[in-house]
Every structure is written in structure tokens, then in C-alpha cells.
């Protein structure tokens, strides 16, 4: 068997390792187009604040970890011939496969704004981006961040820590609208303002004019901000262009997979940010674009590549944790709630603490929290375990902070 994995991010790396374990004799090839050893994008913010060096971002630290067990190829896959079961790299090399994994992740998309391609504008997605940003970051530097979504907010922390003078422009009506409810998002915004970060919501960048030593950014409502560095974090698109011609089914640009992580074309699997996979809570198919999901996908896809049908995906639970200048927010599953479901929330605005729980019947299905970190993971346990809470539901409705107690009661009959 020859397994080829395209993309050396977390999804690809975990898949390769899993295959190696399940099929010790198969040939495993991992093709990646970035020059560095496989690394974690998630670690980039910590690189920016110099908590770690580049090595600190590497997915695997042991020297020779990959080379000893799989074949590592540097290169970019340009096309796939699914009927011939082969692929071609941009440098012309060709490669045959029995099973192929698309773990190519995604690429940031730039908003269609005049001047967005100027040299003071960058994304924050790769190590290369990180180097560029690090160069421009210094205390007092004026930085403008486009987008206060999850990725935007993740790097916001690092930008503030570097001492930059930061302005954030977000199109939506609140921060992280796809992760936090209105209360939570608004509190986060208050928090940022309190920490001296100017966050404009409901605002759009209209143009960027590149002057000598600054970029003049025009923002809707007639405002203008001068920035030495503009960072765009305004959405991503899956890297699936090279699959053109295979007839593979895509949704929003990402590969649609079934519950075995297999695409519409047999023998081709997909995982991570490039895959439109099953959501545990809704049963729908979507791109969650988070690291734990990439890892989970990689593992399950690998099992099925070795023995198709061996593992069925129940769906990943969507979950995020965000640290915004010391204020930690979390979301799980269906934090927006469902029609006909119950919900409870507890708010301490001054203390920046918030929790909201969403129920379907007496089961927990989603949660948002702010400023609460202890035993937070148990929310996952409660949601994914689909525990019937019985009378503990009313106790939670009375005091939603008793999540740990509810969990123990559900699992241990406490």
C-alpha cells in the first residue's frame, strides 16, 4: 500500500503517524509545501511575543521524527488524476497512491480593498508571515488589524503584548461573532477598550493608501487611521484548487467527506481545515477550522485509509478557547442554543465573568463562558457524553457554575 498525504499540518502529521502504527509495512509519503518542518499555526502568537522560538512551534520536536518513519517530500501538489491514482507536483514530479489524504488546510483571503496588496499589508497565517510581522512589531508601532474573528482575536493578544498601538476593524456587530454570543462579544469589546485597544465593530476598511512610511487606512464612517503595519485576518478558503478535474464534491471550497472521512471520489480522503466534516452537535457538515478537529480528522481518516469502514466518525464538537489580553473565553457546541431548548446564563459584568448553558431537554448541548477557566473541559464531557442530567438540570438552571458537580452526579451518581 502507498499512502500519500498532502499537507504537513496537524491533520497530515497525525494521519501519517496513525497509518504508520496501523500498517507498519505500508509506504507513507507526506508532501508539504512549506519550507519548515511541520509546525503548528496555533503557536504563532506565542512566537510573536517571543515566548518561544520557531522550533517551539514545531509539531514534533524529536530530530528525525518523520524521516525515520515516513517519507517526507517537499513540494506543492498541483493536480491529481483520480482515475490513474496519481498526482503531480508543481515541479513536475509524479507520484502514485493507493489512498490519498487531502490535508492541505486553508489560505487567508484578502478583502477586496484598494491597496490591500501593498507591502505594509500582511496576513498572519504562516511562519513566513510571522517573521514579517515580528519585524514590524515594536512598542509604540501603530498596527491595524482587519477582522476580529477567532484568528484576529488570537493574534490581537500578541499584538497588544508587543506594545503596539493597535486598532481593530471588524465588519460584524461584535467581536468573534461566530464563537461568542452578543453578551460575551460585547463584554470582550469593553474589556479591550478598557485595556486601551480601539476596537471598531460594524466598520469596514474602504481603502489603503500607501504613503512613505505609513499606510493610511480609510474606514467606513469617514475615519482614517495611519498604520505602519496592517494585518488582515478576514477569513480563509480551503486549499482544494489542485483537485480540479477530479470531480470531487466541494462545499464552500472545502472537500465534503462522509463519516469515514472519504470524499465523493473513492480512495481520496480529506481532513482538517480542508475538509467539510461532520459536526457532532448538528450532524451537519462544515469546516470547523480548529486544531483539535484537524487532529481528530487525521486520526479517523488514517484508520479508514488503512481499512476502509473501520472507524465511523461521530462528528467533532466545535470548541474554542480564546485569551484576549488575559480575559479567557470559551465556546462549545451549540452555544447559540436551539429552538425549543432551554438556556441559562449568569453574568457578572463588572467582574468580567459570564457563563451561558444551552440545553436540549435535559442534555447540555452548548456553552459560552468568559473569565472562567477551572474545570472548563467538563463542559465537553457533558455535551459529548450526552448525559441525561435529570434533576441536575434544574440545579444548573439555578446555578450554572455547578458544571463539575453536575458532571460528577451524572457519571458517578454523586
Amino acid at each position: 500500500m502507498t499512502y500519500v498525504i498532502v499537507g504537513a499540518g496537524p491533520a497530515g502529521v497525525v494521519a501519517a503517524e496513525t497509518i504508520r502504527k496501523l500498517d507498519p509495512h505500508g509506504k507513507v509519503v507526506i508532501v508539504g509545501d512549506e519550507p519548515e518542518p511541520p509546525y503548528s499555526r496555533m503557536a504563532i502568537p506565542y512566537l510573536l511575543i517571543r515566548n518561544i522560538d520557531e522550533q517551539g512551534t514545531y509539531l514534533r520536536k524529536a530530530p528525525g521524527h518523520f524521516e525515520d518513519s515516513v517519507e517526507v517530500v517537499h513540494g506543492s501538489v498541483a493536480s491529481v488524476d483520480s482515475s490513474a491514482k496519481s498526482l503531480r507536483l508543481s515541479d513536475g514530479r509524479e507520484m502514485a497512491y493507493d489512498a490519498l489524504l487531502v490535508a492541505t488546510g486553508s489560505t487567508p483571503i484578502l478583502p477586496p480593498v484598494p491597496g490591500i496588496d501593498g507591502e505594509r499589508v500582511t496576513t498572519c497565517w504562516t511562519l513566513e508571515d510571522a517573521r514579517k510581522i515580528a519585524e514590524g512589531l515594536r512598542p509604540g508601532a501603530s498596527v491595524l488589524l482587519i477582522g476580529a474573528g477567532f484568528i484576529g482575536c488570537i493574534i490581537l493578544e500578541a499584538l497588544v503584548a508587543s506594545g503596539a498601538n493597535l486598532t481593530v476593524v471588524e465588519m460584524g456587530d461584535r467581536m468573534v461573532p461566530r464563537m461568542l454570543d452578543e453578551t460575551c462579544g460585547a463584554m470582550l469589546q469593553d474589556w479591550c477598550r478598557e485595556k486601551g485597544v480601539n476596537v471598531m465593530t460594524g466598520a469596514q476598511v474602504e481603502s489603503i493608501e500607501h504613503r512613505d512610511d505609513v499606510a493610511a487606512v480609510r474606514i467606513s464612517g469617514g475615519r482614517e487611521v495611519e498604520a505602519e503595519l496592517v494585518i488582515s485576518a478576514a477569513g480563509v478558503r480551503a486549499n482544494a484548487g489542485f483537485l480540479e478535474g477530479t470531480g470531487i464534491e466541494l462545499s464552500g471550497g472545502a472537500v465534503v467527506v462522509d463519516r469515514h472521512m472519504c470524499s465523493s471520489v473513492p480512495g481520496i480522503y480529506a481532513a482538517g481545515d480542508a475538509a467539510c466534516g461532520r459536526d457532532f452537535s448538528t450532524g451537519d457538515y462544515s469546516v470547523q477550522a480548529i486544531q483539535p478537529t484537524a487532529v481528530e480528522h487525521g486520526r479517523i481518516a488514517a484508520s479508514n485509509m488503512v481499512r476502509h469502514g473501520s472507524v465511523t466518525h461521530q462528528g467533532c464538537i466545535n470548541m474554542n478557547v480564546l485569551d484576549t489580553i488575559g480575559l479567557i473565553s470559551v465556546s462549545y457546541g451549540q452555544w447559540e442554543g436551539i429552538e425549543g431548548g432551554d438556556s441559562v446564563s449568569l453574568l457578572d459584568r463588572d467582574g468580567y465573568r459570564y457563563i451561558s448553558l444551552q440545553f436540549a431537554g435535559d442534555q447540555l448541548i452548548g456553552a459560552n463562558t468568559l473569565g472562567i477557566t477551572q474545570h472548563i473541559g467538563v463542559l465537553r464531557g457533558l455535551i459529548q457524553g450526552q448525559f441525561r442530567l435529570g434533576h441536575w438540570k434544574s440545579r444548573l438552571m439555578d446555578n450554572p457554575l455547578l458544571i463539575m458537580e453536575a458532571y460528577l452526579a451524572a457519571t458517578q451518581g454523586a
Partner: protein
Amino acid sequence: MSWTRKILRVNLTEGTLNVEPLNMQWAAEYIGQRGLATRYLFEETDPTCDPLGPDNKLIFATGPLTGTMASTGGRYSVITKSPLTGAVACSNSGGFIGAELKSAGWDMVICEGRSPSPVMLHIVDDKAELVPADDLWGKSVWEADKLIHQKYNDPQMRIAAVGRAAEAGCLYSAVINDLHRAAGRSGVGTVMASKNLKAMAVRGTLGVGNIKDPGRFLSATTEQKKVLAENAVTGQGLPALGTQVLMNVINEIGALPTNNMKEVQFKDANKISAEAMQEPRESDGKPNLTTNAACFGCTIACGRISTIDREHFTVENKPEYWGNSGGLEYEAAWALGADTGVGDLDTLTYANFVCNEDGMDPISFGATVAAAMELFEEGVITTEHTGGMELRFGSSEALAWCAEKVATGEGFGADLGLGSKRLCEKYGRPELSMTVKGQEFPAYDPRGVQGMGLTYATSNRGACHLRSYTVASEVLGIPEKTDPLSTDGKAGLVKAFQDATAAVDSTGLCVFTTFAWSLDNIAPQVDAACEGDWTPERLLEAGERIWNLERDYNMRAGLTGADDMLPKRLLKDAAKTGPAEGKVSGLDVMLPEYYELRGWTADGQLTQDTRSRFGLPA
């Protein structure tokens, strides 16, 4: 070290808070908690002050071992001048708030003055603030606890509060912490309420460090925990049966005061004993006792967690009383039960819950009800006074009714809230009050356990068993058996116990450890934790110093040797049944001997010589 060396001073009148360094010179002499706080009280208050006036102070004090891994190292004490006795009050409590306060970085909190309106003291580590508590006033301890937890959304927060009884002026109000642990005696809760301080809420996340020799401390505490585990009382009796293990024992030796101490044995003792608490009930098949529970750091775990039968008349319409809460310990079971003649376990548990919920000392409450019952049976108190309730010995209804009345201070509850002494005086029969210095007796009849007569008479906080628990020796044979019916050697025994206990009460440890530990076991733990050299001898000396300081405070407050007196009933009316039949208390023999051993004058005054021997303040 192991002291945090920090005091929080709260001026309730001004609403100001200040941080002060702990007086380490005094700590070296008075250890901590009971001793050290008394030293501060002595220094800072006029002993003749009105206990319920702004000049009195209220001190929450931890010991150097509070919050450490030493077994039972979770204690704190509330020190003030008592409104019940007019003497120094020091009430010791377990639970968790003591350790929490220490973990927040405080050895002591000194509250002075009086707030113009209800407030709560809120402490989170080194941040402390006074918060308006108008919304908490008029609420029970349990309600206040819930509201405070809701307000701060922190299930880990530890809370001490006073209930409606204290607000209504009940003179034996307790400070209740962690819902059912009490700094129970002498009306320390009444003082707290008089200052308009409804509650103290504490969260400590700093931890307790500064251990002089951590390695030695760990091995010393581990070794001493083994001693507790291997001891029959602390290793088996107390965890399994609680202090209630004593009910049948004390009844058998004829020292279980019954019906306001008219008798010394109770026919229904076995129905309210530890063993009875483990019997499955008919209604739901569950026993009264759910489990035992520990205070912070305690490896004994004598605490009782109990339920009341849901169908019992006291709670059938009160679902909030259906869950588990702090159950009966011996003194409470005795006061609420034997002393009132009530032999119904559920009613006792209910009355105990009410005492916890609204902050009353169950010993003083039960004993006051017992006095009221005698007054009723004598025809002095009538249904006109009570509004219809017949206060008869043995009446469960009467007991439950009294608890509810005192809890709120309504109607006859106000009279009961005066305590036995003032109640009997008010109704013209002072001789029916079973008190010393105005404080009600606990559960050992001095006619059957002679040492306890002297213990009660000389206790610095009024009648109290915990000042020198000679029962250990006279009944249990710890450290060696003495004859409970004899007065021989009891003066020395009492003095030795008083001094040792004063030391233990000042360390942060629980006095129940002394069933297994002597100062020889405690000193190595203190020594490994605290700066300086702490030998058993030094601890004992500190204990004696503390005892004399308390006595000195009382004398300055206007008490005299004449207050070291037992009620006539115990001196004149002989025990009618049991092994002590025909006996009265031999206080007259023991007291002079005791004074002499203490180095006091024949009328019980401290001499200049004693003062200087212990370096007491002039």
C-alpha cells in the same frame, strides 16, 4: 513563620480597613488564635466596656498551624468580650473558613466600632472591603450564605455569618461558618450583630507557606497523623460514632444531666445516641446519619452529616430541611435532648438544624429551654407567657417551637434568648438556672464527674467543658484513669488540662486531637513550622500564661472569685440514681486547692508575682 504576620483591622464605625504587621513578640508568648487574640483584646479594650457597645472588639483569629497539613489544622477562634458572661469569650470553630482566611494571607481580623448600617466583610486574598449588607439583614445564615455565594458566583468562597437570632439580640448567638460549623459559645455572634456586621466572606488562593522546616514539618505531621489513626478514640470512635459515642457512656456512669439537671440519668438516652443515629428509620429505611465529615485538614472526621425524616412533623412542610446538613454532636444532643427530656432524634436534629440556620449555641439554647420547662412545670411560666405552648419536659413540640421562636426572636423567643440565668432571674427563680458566670452547662454532671465541677466553676468563659476536659481522664482514662467520683487530685488535673488546652487552642489545632496527643505530640509540629524553639514545656508555659491573662481580663472586667461558683442544685441536691447516687459536687474542697496551685490569692485574685512570672501586662 507559618504566621502570615498580617492583621486586617476593620474600623466599622469609619468603614476603613488597614493592614498591620502581627506583633511577633506577642506571638512568641501567646502563640496565635486564642492566646494571641486575647492579648490584643486585653491591650485594646477596656475590660469593663459594654460587650454590645462600639468599644468592644471582635477578633477572628487563626493559629500558626491553621491552613497547614497538620491534622485538624483548620481552626479559628472568635475572641471578644461576652454579652452572656461579661467575661472574655473565645469560641473555637472548625469547618473551612479559618484555613481560607489564612490562605488569603491573614492571621487575624480585628473588627472595632460599629457600622452605621449592616455590612459584610469581603476578603479575597489581600483585597478586603466592606460591602453594604442591608439585603442580608433579616436573613438566616443559610439564606445569607446562598445570597452571598450568588452575589460573588464563587462556590469556593467560605462564609461566616450571624443569623436572625443574633440580630434579635439572643445572648447566646453563634457565628456560623460553612453552614453548620459554629463559633458557638458565649454569644460571640451577638457581638458581631451588635456591630452590624452580618457576615464575613473569604476566598484565599495564596496558600500557607513560610514553614520553618518543610521537610521536618511533613514528617512530623505524618507521624502524628499515624498516632491519631491508631488511637481507639480518634481513629475509630470519633469517626464512626462522633462525639455522640459518649451519650450512652455518660448516661451509664450517672453523669448525664437530665431535665434541667434535676436528674443524672436519662431514660431515653439510647434513643438519641450515636447508635440510634445509625439505625434505619421506619419511614424511609435511611438512618439519621448519612456520613461522617471532616473539617479542613482533619484526619479524625468526627463531624456528623444527617437528615431528618421527611415525614416528621417538624419538616413535613419544609422541603428546605430535607437535605443533609450538620447533624448532632454530643453536647447538642444532650442539651436539646436529655436536658429537656426530649428523646426524639428527629426533633433534636431539627432543633440542631435551626440552631445552625439561625446561629444559636445549641448548648445554651437547650439548657435555657430546660430551665424554661422547669419554670413552666413549677407554674412560674404559663401558657399566657408563651401564647399557648406548654413547655413540658419531654415535649418535642415545645422544643421545636422554642427553636423557631428564638431563631427569630419573636414573642416568647425573646425571653428564651436571654439565656437561662437572665430568664430565671426575670421570673424570680434564679436558683433554677444551671449556669456559671451566666453561661449554661454542657453535658457532664459535676456530681458524677467531679473534675468537671471545678472545670465549670473556674472556666474563664463561664461553664464550659472544653476548657479542661477532665472527662478524658475521669471517664476514658486519658492520659490515665482517675476516679470520677473523687475530688482527689482534681485541682491539679484541671489546671494541667486548662493550660494544655489553652496552648492547643492557640495553635490552630483541634482539641479533640488530645484524646491521642499530648503536648509532646504537638510541639514537634509547631516547632517544625514556627520560628523559635517550641518544646512541650514552652507550649505549656504559654498555655498557663494565656490562662492567667484571660483570668486577669475577667478580674478587670469586675468578676471575682465569687463567680467561680456552681448552682446550689449541684452542691446541695445529691444525684438520685446511678453510680454517683448520693453525691454532690465537691467544689468546696477542690477550689481552694486550685487557687493555690494557680498561685492566686485565697479569693481567687491574681498576684503580682504570678503576673510577673508570666510577663503579663501591668
